[in-house]
């Protein structure tokens, strides 16, 4: 391993790296469609992910209409309901959150924040997006095949996944598995790029310990994803074989409709192990970039250095490592050995330690900060609240004794939506409000942003807080209607369901306002200038806004300091960009009569 090499010269020359040959586009097609510029690819990723996310949002509204006002909407039958639930979950987790955080934010911020011209393998990067795009098309196509998309739930548990009676067992399941396969191949190409670029293309002076936490989050999340997605790939291939070739990896001997199925000897539990070996790290694949983004936004808008930077980095690493040894806490009721449950409950609760370190450090960053309540800051603070709330209910579900009665109730739905739906989405909004000025050169409308924040924040709590109560009442998840148990369901449950549905519609409306804001501000937003938030990281120091292909001018920036030099005592401005050498820092005029200690 190379030693940290100190340069004696005070003005270090730019790092000597072979100038990249940037594959500039020469026509409309190669500039905007098959572009190899990471920033264009990032926007393609983001637009695709947000579009498919809006579709998943519409599905969630359909789900809520049925739950809040049963027997009112005839187009939602039990099969359709299950299909909506499945597609909503899968799209949101994989095709929106993973793709947006890593494909979208990763592509845009990695080269800019580490001072590189582009990704290490631009062609592979372009392929990565197009694989993702095709995987989305294949997924959407499943709505149009006979039988529709699969309705087995986003966890896709066999044997019901491919057994008669589950909606979409013919075309739907196959397209889902194929789509996941394409997604994983595409992601692997992108992920290779993110890791290699961060390792190899950091500019001079950008040591690991000077990386903004956003980059640390994306770096570690990509590693988790590269190691965890193979589990889903293996599981998807085996499901396809079970379904198409008649093997029995996961299918036990079964009687269906009075007939014995051809399968024999498969293990559904094996699928659950493989699925959750991917599924649990997936939570952190989404959460780690969110942690990083929030850290940077808090520091910038509170004008304070992040509290405990090194601890933040190690906590990210610890969470990432631990996330691989907790998967079976999703399987407490699957009939596995109870001693395993004890083991996994322990590891699960241990994760609370590094997570708590992060939360304390965020709060301590705000402490005595010069807080500017901008829209990104509101969303970042909203994230902290939501993440703490979601984490707290996780303590209940992580314990076997409490999980057994709560499993498969709305308590679980409330918990995971708080911790891995609302919290990361809050971060996504924080990030978009924060970086939109750099990406487009214009500010998003602040008034609309604040309405968007408050409706989303209060609305999300009105949706998911009551679900915990429903869960404690024993209301099961994934039920289309109460059926014969309806007389035993209390009025409070019925009323709460209606309230939740109304809140969901309000929140959805606020998201449309956000989309309008995005489109409107593109042309009519206030001019942003190069660095509207007075931030220190390199992407705000580019020559052009938005940055051109190649990101920086003739010379790559040289980094002299970490990303958190805010409110440094004695300096004239309350921020020092990473590329300002120590001797060029402007000092404040000493105030008359001020005694220096």
């Amino acid at each position, binding site marked *: *391993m*190379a030693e*940290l*090499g*100190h*340069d004696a*010269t*005070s003005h*270090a020359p730019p*790092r000597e790296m072979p100038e990249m040959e940037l594959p500039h586009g020469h026509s409309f097609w190669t500039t905007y469609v098959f572009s190899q510029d990471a920033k264009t690819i990032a926007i393609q990723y983001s637009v695709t992910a947000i579009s498919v996310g809006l579709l998943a949002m519409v599905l969630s509204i359909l789900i809520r209409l049925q739950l809040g006002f049963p027997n009112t909407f005839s187009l939602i039958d039990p099969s359709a309901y299950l299909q909506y639930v499945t597609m909503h979950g899968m799209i949101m987790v994989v095709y929106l959150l993973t793709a947006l955080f890593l494909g979208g934010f990763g592509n845009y911020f990695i080269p800019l924040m580490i001072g590189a011209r582009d990704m*290490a*393998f631009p062609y592979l990067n372009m392929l990565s997006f197009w694989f993702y795009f095709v995987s989305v098309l294949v997924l959407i196509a499943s709505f149009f095949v006979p039988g529709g998309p699969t309705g087995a739930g986003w966890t896709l548990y066999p044997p019901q996944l491919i057994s008669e009676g589950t909606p979409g067992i013919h075309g739907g399941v196959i397209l889902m598995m194929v789509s996941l396969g394409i997604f994983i191949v595409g992601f*692997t190409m992108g*992920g*290779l790029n993110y*890791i*290699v670029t961060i*390792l*190899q293309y950091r500019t*001079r*002076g950008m*040591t*690991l*310990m000077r990386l903004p936490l956003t980059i640390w989050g994306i770096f570690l999340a990509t*590693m988790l994803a*590269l*190691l965890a997605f*193979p*589990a889903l*790939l*293996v599981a998807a291939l*085996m499901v396809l074989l079970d379904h198409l*070739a*008649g*093997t*029995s*990896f996961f299918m036990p001997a079964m009687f269906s409709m009075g007939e014995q199925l051809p399968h*024999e*000897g*498969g*293990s559904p539990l*094996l699928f659950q*192990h*493989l699925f959750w*070996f991917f599924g649990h790290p997936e939570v952190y694949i989404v959460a780690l970039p969110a942690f990083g983004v929030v850290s940077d936004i808090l520091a910038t808008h509170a004008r304070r*250095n992040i509290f405990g*930077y*090194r601890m933040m*980095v*190690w906590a990210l*690493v610890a969470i990432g*490592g631990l996330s*691989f*040894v907790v998967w079976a806490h999703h399987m407490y009721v699957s009939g596995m050995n109870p001693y395993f449950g004890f083991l996994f409950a322990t590891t699960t609760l241990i994760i609370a330690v590094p997570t708590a370190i992060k939360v304390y450090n965020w709060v301590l960053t705000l402490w005595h900060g010069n807080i500017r309540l901008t829209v990104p800051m509101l969303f970042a603070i909203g994230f902290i609240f939501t993440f703490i709330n979601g984490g707290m209910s996780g303590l209940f579900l992580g314990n076997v004794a409490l999980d057994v009665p709560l499993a498969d109730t709305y308590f679980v739905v409330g918990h995971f939506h708080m911790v891995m739906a609302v919290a990361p989405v809050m971060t996504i909004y924080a990030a978009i409000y924060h970086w939109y000025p750099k990406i487009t050169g214009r500010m998003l409308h602040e008034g609309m942003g604040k309405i968007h924040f408050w409706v989303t924040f209060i609305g999300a709590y009105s949706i998911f807080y009551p679900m915990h109560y429903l869960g404690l009442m024993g209301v099961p998840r994934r039920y289309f209607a109460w059926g014969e148990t309806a007389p035993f369901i209390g009025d409070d449950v019925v009323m709460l369901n209606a309230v939740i549905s109304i809140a969901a519609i309000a929140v959805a409306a606020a998201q449309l306002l956000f989309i309008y804001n995005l489109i409107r501000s593109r042309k009519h937003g206030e001019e942003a200038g190069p660095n509207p938030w007075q931030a220190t990281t390199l992407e705000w120091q580019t020559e052009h806004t938005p940055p051109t292909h190649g990101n920086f001018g003739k010379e790559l920036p*040289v980094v*002299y*300091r*970490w990303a958190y*030099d805010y409110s440094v005592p004695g300096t004239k401005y309350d921020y020092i960009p990473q590329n300002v050498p*120590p001797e060029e820092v402007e000092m404040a005029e000493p105030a008359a009569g001020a005694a220096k200690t």
Partner: protein
Amino acid sequence: MTITLVFLAALLAFFLGWVLSRTVNVEPWVADGGSINDHLPEILTTPRVGLAIFLAVASSVFALSISAYHMRMDWGPDWLSVPSPALLWVNTVILVLGSLALQWSWNAARRDDPAGRRRWLYVGGALTCAFFVGQILVWRDLTAAGYYVTANPANSFFYFMTGLHALHLLGGLVAWVRTVKRDRDDTPSDVVCTSVELCTIYWHYLLVIWFILFALLLTT
């Protein structure tokens, strides 16, 4: 999952060591007059790092498959192991020779000997194709003997894992074809050398994976 966890623990230990060596005793808040670097050593060129990361991903796929194999095997008395046809030994030898041929091609490339580089590159590719033919014969013989893919979980796993290995090798052949193309047109020789090098490392890696899979099939 023990095997996967051991694999991941090894990766994690390596990564933790690397991160700690770069982050303990570093004071990130200190601005530096000059500027400091902590890049990877020269020997880890960008293509090599890229390949290494890909190999970690592929290893994850194989580790998980092997874990699944073990889990399934331990669960039921219905597990009837697949016999190991003698042809598999022949195929193994062919794969070893293919790896050696590519190694010689790489050695020739480093000696700046384009004729040797090309000769051994072709030999390596031909041997790999021979391995494919051999594997197809194994599959055909087993099917003919009644070991269908659906007959027993052990059979399903046998076809799945040998198929996965073959697919990875097929991907390698795509890279091999690209390398041959570069070798034939006027690509600068250091670029061709990098291509040959990456192919060679990948072939060695798949050879090791094959040893592991073959040992697994022989012992269970």
